[in-house]
């Protein structure tokens, strides 16, 4: 029954989106971290999605789920603030913060949560259709 595949497809989307939310959460949590002794501050991470074909053998593209293929680190330079009093300041008196852009992350979070909701709604629709299919012939 091809309808059951919808749960695999939508489930993969929901889990991929929750991973994206996870990454956004860790980015936001580390938005104000300062570079350690090695001079490297936290780098913003971003998930990259990839399609996974889940269809039957005769038509694999009939059902396409999604997965997180990689988590990429941003190469943007970290925010540098002149603060010679700070114990983490370098020789020039600059403190390097992480390169997380909180506004970007908030937008990313909204987008991920919307996509998550879409996945749930797809599952709900499939569930109610299947429930009605089970009752086929019982109500006219």
């Amino acid at each position: 029954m091809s309808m059951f595949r919808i749960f695999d497809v939508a489930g993969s989307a929901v889990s991929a989106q929750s991973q994206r939310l996870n990454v956004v959460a860790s980015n936001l949590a580390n938005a104000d971290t300062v570079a350690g002794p090695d001079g490297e501050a936290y780098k913003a991470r971003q998930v990259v999605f990839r399609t996974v074909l889940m269809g039957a053998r005769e038509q694999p593209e009939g059902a396409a789920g999604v997965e997180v293929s990689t988590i990429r680190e941003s190469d943007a330079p970290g925010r540098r603030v002149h603060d010679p009093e700070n114990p983490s300041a370098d020789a020039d008196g600059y403190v390097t913060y992480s390169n997380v852009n909180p506004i970007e992350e908030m937008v990313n979070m909204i987008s991920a949560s919307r996509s998550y909701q879409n996945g749930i709604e797809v599952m709900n629709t499939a569930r109610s259709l299947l429930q009605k299919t089970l009752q086929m012939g019982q109500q006219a």
Partner: protein
Amino acid sequence: MINRLTGVLDFQAQALTLRSERQRLIASNIANADTPGYVARDFDFAQALRQATGGTQGRFRLAENAGQGLPADAGRAARPPRLNYATTAQDNLDGNTVDMNRERASSLDNALRYESTLRFISSSVKNTLDAIKPYNQ
């Protein structure tokens, strides 16, 4: 003889199968709304149904096969419908062509039509049951 009773259901059963396949495709499109380079897919329902039922409606097909036992393709799974690929109304930087508004509308429309096909099958079963009921009940 029995396929005269069930033959009317064949057409609706094919339609139901295709509806569920389309629902699955729409689910795939919605799942991949954020995947870079994903191209949205859909199929032409009318054409797929014509292909699955051999271009005839259930009733005519029944007449064709009357007295010949089961039709030649009975029990064989229909070929999967040919998929079409969507182009975007608005271009995306990541090459994704899923239009969420279109997909949501298709999903609603398809779910409603799936349910109506279910209703058709249910009432057709009920009609058959009514027909084979003894006269005095």
